[in-house]
């Protein structure tokens, strides 16, 4: 055994090869399988949230529509494009690593980081708007939840009850709305929508922040030429994580921002 270990370096095998594996290919497949099993646990975690979201959306449909319509769809739309773009640059980084193109790999990883950071920046702007509108659930943060026109709650869609009672068409003409009491009740119930909005986008953003941290570590290793055609498993597995986070957003965007955006007539 000891003679084996002393002679091992002379065989010139890849430094990343762990000896419990038959060969590099088997090692890569084991890592990939492990990564997918981890992603399965992630599917279960987000899956629970999505299921709860669907049940309450069906039960309190009007309140979910009211809450959903009060968030800025342009920011959400732009952020979807940013995240899809970052998934593309990440796929390209894996491709560059596989082809042994170090500089391209570094550039694509940096682009992925830039787009990921831009996404979080937009998310911060959106959260700030909701903070100003008093749409943070609970009574702890800011002035507490208030969707019926509380003092100091500024912003275009802050007063959800008013919006429901006197809805306007795209041309600015007023159309028949709901009675005041019903409008106020729906506005109060929209707090539940915001619980899901913040829980789901918050958990998603947490994944992005962790992802950016791991990405910095991958970038450092790529810069030091640690990856090439023979070994790029960390880049590939991180790519799987990044794409998974992208997929979660692909569902979050229509479910949270686009419940019902049909203009009034």
């Amino acid at each position: 055994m000891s003679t084996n270990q002393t002679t091992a370096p002379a065989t010139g095998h890849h430094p990343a090869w762990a000896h419990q594996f038959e060969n590099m290919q088997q090692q890569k497949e084991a890592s990939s399988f492990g990564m997918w099993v981890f992603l399965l646990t992630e599917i279960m975690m987000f899956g629970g949230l999505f299921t709860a979201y669907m049940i309450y959306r069906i039960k309190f449909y009007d309140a979910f529509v009211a809450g959903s319509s009060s968030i800025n769809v342009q920011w959400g739309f732009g952020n979807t494009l940013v995240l899809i773009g970052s998934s593309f640059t990440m796929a390209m980084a894996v491709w560059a690593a596989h082809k042994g193109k170090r500089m391209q790999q570094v550039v694509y990883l940096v682009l992925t980081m830039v787009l990921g950071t831009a996404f979080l920046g937009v998310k911060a702007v959106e959260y700030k708007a909701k903070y100003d509108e008093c749409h943070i659930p609970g009574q702890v943060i800011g002035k507490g939840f208030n969707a019926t026109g509380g003092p100091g709650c500024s912003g275009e869609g802050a007063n959800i009850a008013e919006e429901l009672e006197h809805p306007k068409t795209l041309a600015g003409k007023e159309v028949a709305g709901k009675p005041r009491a019903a409008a106020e009740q729906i506005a109060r119930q929209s707090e539940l929508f915001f619980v899901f909005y913040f829980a789901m986008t918050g958990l998603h953003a947490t994944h992005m922040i962790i992802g950016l941290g791991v990405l910095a570590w991958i970038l450092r290793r790529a810069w030091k030429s640690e990856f090439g055609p023979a070994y790029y498993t960390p880049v590939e597995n991180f790519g799987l994580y990044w794409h998974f986070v992208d997929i979660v957003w692909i569902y979050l965007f229509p479910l949270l921002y686009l419940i019902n955006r049909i203009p009034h007539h």
Partner: protein
Amino acid sequence: MSAENSRAAESSHPTPALYGLILAILVSGTALTYFAATWEMGIFNPIVALTIACTKATLVILYFMHVRYSNKLTIITVCAGFFWLLILISLSLSDYLTR
């Protein structure tokens, strides 16, 4: 050891052109899902939105995540994950929707 070379050659990768095409489809899908939400389709609004989302997710899984080019173990692992998700959502909803 000889098996290493033959199996490594098997695992092909998509080309940048294909990645570009997938990106274009994903961007179009995002635009489509936005415009679909502004049309009055009744019960079909959420169905259309989720169909587009599922199509986009499938493209990401097959091409960006290389599942189309992966071994059978990976494919069955991915399928098992989504099958579980389907059980969670369908059985939970079949309970709540029939109360």
